[in-house]
């Protein structure tokens, strides 16, 4: 079965999740991956959206983090202050799943501004839950499409902290959580180098070349000693993902 890079990204990201995980889900690519995991190999995964919905199991992908179906299918829905205090800050989230506008090789994320904060070239939405998702989740997974505009050596604004300048920078700021441990893109899987904490390619998706990698990332791409090939999507994975997307498009009408 043929598949798109987008599909490969979502499926590769979904594979990272386990039924035991309690996942704080960002909207967009993370949401698709998390729900695909739930609909395939991780049926018991707990998905949490910052709107307060805990243990939600939507039949279609939500358009926002506060869609009615998230509440309808949740185990329970708590207030937003409780969500951030008891559930995120309380240390109960195993995986924070984030996207980004700009990402640097140490997993630091910018979703605040392009340009100067006081006089931005582009005013982006801002951090929302991300600053504390990044510091309080047991680990952080990041998923986004590779591009020279997005994968930059230096981000314009530290919306949320990954590994800072690398090494033990997180620990020096008093963080006891692992920070970004996986980066799943449309072309590859990355993990931080155990020492430097700089993202290193650990697997290329089927057919992806190192040239493509260099052309789609504005930092120097480094590779792990053994670079694997990501297993191609199985027919079952593709089928479930496509059905989910089709249900979503049907439900959200012109908006999907």
């Amino acid at each position, binding site marked *: 079965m043929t598949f798109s890079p987008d599909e490969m990204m979502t499926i590769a990201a979904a594979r990272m999740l386990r039924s035991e995980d309690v996942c704080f889900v960002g909207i967009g690519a993370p949401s698709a991956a998390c729900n695909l995991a739930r609909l395939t190999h991780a049926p018991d995964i707990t998905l949490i959206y910052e709107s307060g919905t805990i243990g939600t199991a939507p039949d279609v992908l939500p358009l926002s983090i506060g869609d009615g179906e998230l509440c309808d299918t949740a185990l329970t829905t708590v207030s937003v202050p409780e969500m951030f205090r008891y559930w995120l800050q309380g240390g109960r989230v195993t995986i924070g799943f984030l996207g980004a506008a700009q990402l640097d090789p140490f997993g630091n994320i910018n979703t605040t501004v392009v340009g100067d904060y006081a006089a931005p070239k*582009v005013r982006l*939405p801002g951090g*929302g839950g991300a600053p504390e998702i990044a510091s309080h989740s047991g680990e952080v997974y990041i998923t986004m499409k590779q591009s020279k505009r997005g994968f930059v050596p230096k981000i314009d604004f530290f919306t949320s902290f990954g590994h800072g300048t690398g090494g033990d920078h997180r620990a020096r700021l008093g963080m006891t959580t692992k920070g970004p441990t996986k980066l799943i893109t449309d072309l590859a899987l990355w993990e931080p180098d155990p020492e430097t904490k700089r993202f290193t390619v650990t697997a290329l998706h089927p057919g992806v070349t190192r040239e493509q990698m260099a052309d789609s990332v504005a930092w120097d791409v480094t590779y792990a000693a053994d670079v694997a090939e990501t297993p191609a999507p199985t027919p079952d994975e593709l089928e479930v993902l496509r059905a989910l997307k089709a249900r979503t498009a049907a439900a959200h009408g012109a*908006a999907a």
Partner: protein
Amino acid sequence: MAEFIDLRDAIARHVRPGMAVALEGFTHLIPHAAGHEIIRQGIGELTLIRMTPDVIYDQMIGMGLARKLVFSYAGNPGVGLLRRLRDAVEHNWPVAVEIEEHSHAAMANAYEAGAAGLPCAVFRGYLGAELAEVTPTIKSVTCPFTGEDLAAVPALRPDATVIHAQRADRAGNVLIEGIVGVQKEAALAARAVLVTVEEVVDDLEAPANACILPHWVIDAISVVPGGAHPSYAHGYYDRDNPAYTAWDGIAADRDAFRAWMEAHVLNATPADFAARVAPLRTRP
């Protein structure tokens, strides 16, 4: 004490130029009808507070009513950026807007502290986050037991909080169900509380631990069926997703924006909301 009055009078009585106002609702139950009424009455120089300034604040900012924005995530949910907000921040059109930016955790804690009558909220946050360097209201306190530095932000105390809720009983007690967001905290933190509701009923039919605002913490209740559109009211009508998508195109152009506001806000009334949600109703 909750007074049942029409929306025009409720806004005129409780929302004044220069006030700090919070229109809250976390994707769900966003008080669009009340926001439109503020726009129609041209109440300006406002400090607008909201965790997620989305379409309703894009409209108010685009109409030049905001002097300052206190927020943590400014986006059109499920669609993208807010084009009127961008125009104000990037090009000062129609007027410059001052920004006080926080994280969701900080805003939620700050409302909670406001509801709890405290001067500030204390939490673990902003670790390594650059907002702590650009937002002067982010400070810290030291735990007297462990020595840990914790983040502190001032409590939010809006002059007025405006929310939309499913229903009130005849005494003016208000029920909020489903994604309850930060509305209870935003209401209890405010000096004045305005609520629009879908309907008034004899009995709220609420479970024992429901999210209810007693009538004696509310100043005004206005019945505006559909008043959350294009947001939704759980149990009443669905979210109008196409309207959110369409907003992106409308807001992309200053003239298109003005024309749309003219037609759908300035020359409209709260009563128009009922028709907007008619095709989205999940219960009659």
